[in-house]
């Protein structure tokens, strides 16, 4: 009898609207979450990195980790890029060894470009970061009737973000070698 009364007096409009409203709130909260956090990887790293310049980070150590869950299993060189003033060229050569990577990461954490080393041969990487795919990058040598003697850089469309070159830590004996390879990585702004 009580249950019947409860069902009779229930506000069915609100009961049916609740899951719909909860679903909308769920979607909004999930989509907004990355933008509401004040501690994303980009916002933590950006203040310590100069724009359009590759920097070798010191090895992760207790109380000196730039990010949470950043393992000292690798050394890092990073470049915070901003293509609003013109394209940014990135170049590095990953040694013929396992565990080396070069990634271009957006402020939201997406790897918009990623490549890993292979054991058989060195992996040269040459990128040009441009604000949009339509950006004019100058007349190509081919358009001027000149044959290229080098591989053209791969264009990657990105406005802001971080280029990360990662070298696996192989112990003290290899520390200098890993650092030397990371220091060789370049990140340079050029005008339109």
């Amino acid at each position, binding site marked *: 009898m009580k249950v019947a009364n409860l069902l009779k007096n229930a506000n069915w409009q609100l009961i049916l609207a*609740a*899951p719909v409203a909860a679903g909308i*709130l769920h979607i909004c*909260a999930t989509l907004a979450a990355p933008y509401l956090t004040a501690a994303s990887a980009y916002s933590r790293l950006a203040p310590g990195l100069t724009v359009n310049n590759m920097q070798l980070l010191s090895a992760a150590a*207790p109380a000196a980790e730039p990010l*949470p869950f950043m393992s000292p299993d690798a050394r890092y060189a990073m470049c915070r890029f901003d293509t609003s003033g013109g394209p940014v060229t990135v170049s590095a050569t990953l040694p013929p060894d*396992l565990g080396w990577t070069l990634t271009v*990461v957006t402020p939201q954490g*997406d790897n918009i470009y990623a490549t890993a080393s292979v054991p058989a041969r060195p992996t040269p990487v040459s990128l040009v970061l441009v604000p949009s795919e339509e950006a004019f990058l100058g007349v190509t040598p081919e358009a001027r009737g000149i044959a290229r003697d080098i591989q053209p850089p791969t264009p990657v469309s990105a406005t802001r973000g971080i280029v990360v070159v990662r070298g696996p830590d192989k112990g003290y004996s290899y520390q200098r070698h890993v650092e030397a390879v990371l220091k060789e990585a370049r990140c340079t702004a050029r005008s339109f």
Partner: protein
Amino acid sequence: MLSHSALAPVHLGLHRLHKRVLMAVGILGDWATFIGAVLILGLGTSWYMIDVGTRLTTEKHGPWVGWTSAGRADADPYTRAHFARLGTLQLTTEIALTFVALTDSDGNRLHSSCDYAVEGREPGNHWWSLTVFNDRGDLIANAAQRYTYTSESIALRPDGTFAVTLAREASPGNWLPTGGAGRLALMFTTFDAATTMLGKSADETKQLPVIRRVQCR
């Protein structure tokens, strides 16, 4: 003194007011329940999907949890939100797979008051690493300055298997100090590119180490 007939309109007015107040309380109660239910359902499910994950977004192998589209440009919103909140810089899962364990293989929370044996087999010809953190993702300070083992620094057994001891006190073999960190998190990263390229069975890389509790103090 007022007569009975003179009090009747006052009683009637009070009765009507009482009814209206009850009705307002009922409506307010309905709306409060509605808003509460929407907040709990909407925010609760969002938090669960972002913080814990489900089969849609994560791979679970024993105590190890990995987000299947971490770092990818086509990552789902839950994965994006998870790593944005965590504040980590993820390598795309097209190159490397990262798994985190917060419990041992029996489901008990990892804690520095216990010693653990992490045992596994080298995952093929891939670079891999095993690192211990506290549950906030900080490295644990120790005199030996030892925080991680990689495929290049670990001492393997003759049969290709390995064992790493997580303990406060120094231990022979591969030892990762846990100090007085409290709750622990173990991170296992493996570079999976060769497997993807050669189209080998996906299960080959999913033989993740077993985390066995040895003793607690």
